[in-house]
């Protein structure tokens, strides 16, 4: 009896082939986009018209429905990048490279949005656009890390080599972010403590919490949709580069 050692075509193996990956996940993009649209419509209607204004902050509390989901995504996208970096370093999974590259600009955009909406909200409630407070400062540092990673991707010509180097840096950043967060909190604290996820339950009334959660899922699905679309674009871009290189070699011969 012989032992069969040829690799099996499991779904995991199929995913690691760029063409197969695009073929498998392409049908997902349209439903995901529709779901995102519906969630945004419901969330915005709830947030803008159906929920009451807050007692102290008035209508400006509605900024929260954009601010909190983007702030959550600014960290979730980094986690996605860190897991993809592990995928690159440990399994050398080709799609992990692509996922890491697609997530970096998205993360930077969500972080910038969180900072922008935060400062718009800070102006009427705290009386200032910017305050050197713990959470705002660490979000700003996170934005700088995202932008640095985007710049690092662009500095390499060979994207396969770039992927492994960026993966190392992404993981170094992932180890550092908690330290940065701790040090900045130690440095200064003004921002209100967390009020949604706490051991004794949420401290907000239901009519504010409902649109918040809907918007939360809307933004998360927005990220998933954009991430898949960006990954497909990156796969095609690499294929074009390869074809161009092959064509150039053919001409030279």
């Amino acid at each position: 009896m012989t032992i069969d050692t040829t690799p099996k075509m499991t779904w995991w193996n199929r995913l690691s082939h760029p063409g197969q990956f695009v073929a498998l996940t392409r049908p997902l993009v349209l439903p995901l986009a529709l779901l995102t649209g519906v969630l945004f419509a419901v969330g915005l209607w709830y947030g803008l018209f159906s929920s009451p204004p807050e007692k102290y902050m008035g209508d400006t509390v509605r900024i929260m429905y954009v601010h909190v989901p983007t702030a959550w995504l600014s960290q979730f996208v980094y986690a996605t990048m860190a897991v993809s970096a592990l995928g690159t370093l440990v399994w050398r999974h080709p799609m992990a490279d692509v996922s890491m590259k697609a997530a970096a600009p998205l993360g930077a955009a969500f972080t910038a949005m969180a900072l922008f909406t935060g400062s718009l909200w800070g102006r009427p409630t705290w009386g200032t656009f910017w305050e050197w407070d713990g959470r705002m400062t660490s979000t700003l540092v996170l934005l700088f890390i995202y932008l640095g990673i985007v710049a690092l991707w662009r500095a390499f010509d060979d994207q396969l080599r770039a992927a492994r180097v960026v993966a190392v840096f992404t993981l170094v950043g992932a180890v550092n972010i908690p330290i940065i967060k701790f040090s900045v909190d130690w440095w200064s604290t003004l921002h209100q403590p967390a009020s949604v996820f706490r051991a004794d339950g949420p401290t907000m009334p239901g009519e504010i919490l409902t649109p918040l959660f809907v918007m939360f899922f809307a933004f998360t699905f927005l990220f998933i949709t954009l991430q898949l679309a960006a990954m497909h674009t990156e796969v095609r871009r690499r294929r074009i580069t390869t074809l161009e290189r092959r064509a150039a070699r053919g001409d030279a011969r």
Partner: protein
Amino acid sequence: MNGFWSVLSREIRLSLRGGGEILTLVLFFVIVGAVVPFAVGPDKALLARIAPGIVWIAAFLAMLLGLEKLFGPDRADGTLALYRLADIPLSAVVAAKVIAHWLTAALPLILASPVLALLLAMDATSFWRTVLSLLLGTPALAGFGAIGAAVTVATRRGGLLAPILIAPLSVPVLIFGVGAIAPTGGPDQAQAAILLLAALSLMVVVLSPFAAALAIDWGED
């Protein structure tokens, strides 16, 4: 272990005989510190208050300047490729280079800090605290610098990129470094800051050679 020491002594000899490289770095450090009073005015009380921050910023910038020299020349002349094939691990070579980088780019700055202390009207207590916090904090900057230099060594425009990548990571070092000198409002937390700074330095110095070696190894083919 032999290889480790020979890399260390090679690095130190190279920078000692490199045509006054260390002196240039020290000069940069002092000039950055001495330029600040022109920008904020010669008010002694104000200068004394912000002096620790100025000294730290000057040291931070001076250490970023030397980063390109860390792996760049070795890659250009092929030494780095030989280090990868050496019979000691690449992380040991990187560790030797981090130590040499600290000895040639941080220690001279600390020795030159009395000049800045004098110019910026620091008192004796905060001067000694500054020296202590620089001694404890600059190893972490050297470690982060090695990671930044290793990640960008294979790129064409690495020179400007490394400081951009490292600066956000170095925020805790600056916070605890300055916190160890001048407690900004509230109770005196300098003791805690010194301990946290030392812990951070130990961690970074231990872990950064492995990360930097990984980045160098996988950045090449």
